[in-house]
């Protein structure tokens, strides 16, 4: 119940905030502060000390109680200052597969002449990630956000918090950035890689294509050639890197086709395709990807892999 209330309160407090594209400087209007559980316990301790002082008419007891109260008040001011004028700048996040944690990085800049200790970023109820920000310097915090669905993952509202110096009070602020992380489908599925075909428009499923096996001689290595094609033995003889060449000009093409998986619902299909992309890339093949309304022509390498995975991640609709 309190959880619900708290969420509604948060939503109400931050109703005016829009996701920022730029670094956010925490100003006094967006910093909140409340006692922690420890802070409430400390208040009880102060009350106890106060009663003790009254009961024993102990003048220095009063002074001690008031000193601790004033220090607690001072710590409130310090907690607030620890966040005030802090600048938070969102960094990028490398794409991840569904089920992994997206790693969002943030840079905290401290314009002040003194260091700031124990500043944390927190995503929802995950444990806060603390860091120290040196004077007029910056620090980086990486937040792990679980990627539960493919597509673009937005971390949403983050909490910037600190309990510095005494842990009696927590000062915090909410920030939200216009940023996202690409989430690929989870590579999953039991099917073997489809077979590559010559001249492939990919219509004849299951036909044999043997062209890539017809060896025709060597040519010199050029950047971008798959290491699997390098003729290592020949290279050792000639002192140059040579690549095996094949007579077959219309090379067999490996098409990872949406239609190959006709019977299954959308997500498992995407997962299977994702697995194929990784496998094909791993085996050094050239591969293409066909999705309804999108075709990525065969190639290999990191760029191809990214293009394919991105297409899978952002795939919308498609009825087979």
């Amino acid at each position, binding site marked *: 119940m309190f959880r619900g209330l708290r969420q509604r309160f948060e939503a109400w407090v931050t109703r005016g905030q829009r996701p920022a594209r730029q670094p956010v400087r925490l100003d006094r209007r967006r910093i909140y502060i409340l006692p922690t559980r420890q802070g409430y316990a400390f208040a009880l301790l102060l009350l106890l*000390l106060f009663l003790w002082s009254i009961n024993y008419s102990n003048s220095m007891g009063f002074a001690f109680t008031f000193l601790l109260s004033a220090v607690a008040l001072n710590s409130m001011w310090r907690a607030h200052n620890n966040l005030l004028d802090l600048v938070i700048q969102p960094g990028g996040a490398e794409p991840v597969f569904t089920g992994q944690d997206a790693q969002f990085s943030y840079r905290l800049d401290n314009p002040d002449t003194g260091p700031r200790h124990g500043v944390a970023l927190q995503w929802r109820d995950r444990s806060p990630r603390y860091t120290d920000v040196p004077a007029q310097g910056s620090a980086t915090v990486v937040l792990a956000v679980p990627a539960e669905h493919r597509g673009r993952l937005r971390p949403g509202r983050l909490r910037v918090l600190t309990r510095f110096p005494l*842990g009696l009070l927590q000062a915090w602020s909410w920030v939200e950035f216009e940023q996202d992380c690409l989430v690929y489908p989870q590579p999953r599925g039991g099917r073997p890689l489809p077979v590559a075909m010559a001249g492939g428009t990919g219509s004849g499923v299951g036909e044999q294509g043997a062209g890539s096996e017809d060896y025709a001689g060597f040519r010199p290595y050029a950047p971008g050639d798959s290491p699997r094609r390098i003729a290592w033995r020949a290279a050792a003889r000639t002192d140059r890197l040579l690549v095996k060449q094949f007579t077959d000009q219309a090379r067999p093409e490996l098409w990872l086709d949406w239609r190959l998986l006709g019977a299954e619902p959308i997500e498992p299909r995407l997962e299977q395709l994702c697995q194929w992309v990784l496998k094909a890339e791993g085996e050094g093949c050239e591969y293409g990807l066909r999705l309804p309304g999108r075709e990525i022509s065969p190639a290999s390498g990191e760029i191809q892999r990214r293009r394919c995975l991105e297409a899978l991640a952002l795939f919308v609709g498609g009825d087979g």
Partner: protein
Amino acid sequence: MPWSWRKNRRERAKAAKPPEEPLTRSALIWLLAALVLAAAPHASELPIWLSVLFATVAGWRGFIALRGKSLPPRWLLLLLALLAGAGVLIDYRTLFGRDAGVALMVAMTACKLLETRVLRDGVVLVFLGYLLVMSNLLYSQEIPMVAYLFAAVLVMLAAQTLIHRPHAGLRGVAPLRLAGMMVLQAIPVMLILFILFPRIPGPLWGLPKDAYKGRTGLSDEMMPGTVSELVRSDTVAFRARFASATPPPNQRYWRGPVLWRFDGRRWTRHEELPANTPTPFVAEGAAVDYSVILEPSNRRWLFALDLPARLPPRTGMTASFQLLRDQPVNEVYRYEMQSYPNYRTGELTAAERFRGLQLPARGDPRARALAAQWRERMTRPEDRVGAALALFREQAFYYTLTPPLLGADSVDDFLFRTRQGFCEHYASAFVFLMRAAGVPARVVTGYQGGEANDLGGYFIVRQSDAHAWAEVWLAGRGWARVDPTAAVAPGRVRDGLYAAVADPGLLPFLARRGGGGEYEWLRQLALTWDALNNSWNEWVLAYGPDRQKEFLSGLGFGPVDWAEMTVAMTVTLGGFGLLVIGWRWRRRGTRDPVARAWQRFCARLARRGLARGPHEGPLDFTERVAASRPELAASVREIGRLYAILRYGPMGSPTDVRQLQWRVGRFRV
């Protein structure tokens, strides 16, 4: 669905549970240091085994922390806790009360130390540490102790910062410096609270019996030996500051308990109800105005010169001119007094006459016989008084701190056999003789004299100034003070005890007034220190509910009640807060070079009638200026662009800041 819901809940619980934060090594070391500092002053009153236990455990825990060893098993801890508790119970025969409570707290802290691992344990220890600091104040509030505990609190605050793992970035003495800064900045607020927080007179509930154990002072009965024991102490009883001329020594009789009842050996008080108006008498001559700063005595009576003519708050006066407060004095208590050294009191009531002539049914036949003789021979009571004083003066009576023991008929024994006594012997024998001679008389105990501290301009009255004298009722004069000791040793009243007593070597150092010999400089040093202590007492420790009212009323607001005090406190705190905010605001404004340059730029344009409207952003504004003053367009636009980058863009570079400053500096309208 139910399954997934449950699973969800479990996950949620896992996520919500705060992670355990093991304490870092440096946090533990700071914490140990703070606790040892807080507990150390107790070593003097704790049983030795407990002090040793605490030191051992602290050392052991430190060793574990430094060497990364594992904590002792739980059963050992439990055993230790049980043994320590049993030890306290055996030693004090209780677990309650001040001393046993402190012992238990020290034992608990030791046990907790051995299981301390994570943040939560650290918090508990820090809180225990603050309680230990407080408990020290119950034993002493003197300047050295307060300074020491102040240092302990600094270390404790440093430890409190460091037990939080995220704050471990504070290294070396940085935590201590932070604590110092915090305390320094907290002091103004503390002072406001100390002065203005409405004080409530305590206690709120019953205190343990041993709450104020070990306080020396006058008791409410007198036997041979009570006063002569007391004068062996040079503890300060109270200090007095005279607003008017200082009365001479023979008028400096500080009136304490008045004793009426005699059982042959012991003098005791008669319960008199205090009235809330001063007991009337006829004053002759000028009044003496002074203030008394009374040390805690755990007794209700307040001391005043003969005869007091006004009442401090919450105090009443008995018919025998004794001041009684509603609560025992357990704090340093300051009150304003007025007395008339020359006076006549009124008629004797029947009850007073009865009590003033009371004697034990039997005993001391020789003294009674002597008094009966005086009664027959002399008609005027004054002559009988004179006869008794002459007896002391002319016979071989000695004034000594170590009188011989007295037998069953104590008065006879003293008057006719030993003839060596201290003031209580003389007062007791004198009043006995007077009563037997038909003159109403009573014993008054209190203090006589006092040492002037010229540096502080006040008098110190020590326990060694304790005294007992007599009062007799004479027609026409009322109750008149008679000091039989003065008849034996006139120097006692004039120069103090050290000069008068036969065996001054028994007196403590500070009580040897004028007799310090070659160590007199040391006594003078002690007096300087005492002057400091007196100011501390007068201005700080004595600042209780009464002094607070008096002080605040004295500021010219008239009488103040707690509601007004609360308002004053809130207003002062708020004012102070605003002051701090304002100061920070100004500093922020001047510290930020970008804002300063921009403000200068805007001010310059404003002087030419181109003021920036509150709705205008920097770019809108500079565009408007550029449109109306085309000759300035280029530089104005550049300034606006730079400012916008620095203020609203992603982190501007220091070069941009310099650019802006340079351009604004060169800008002329």
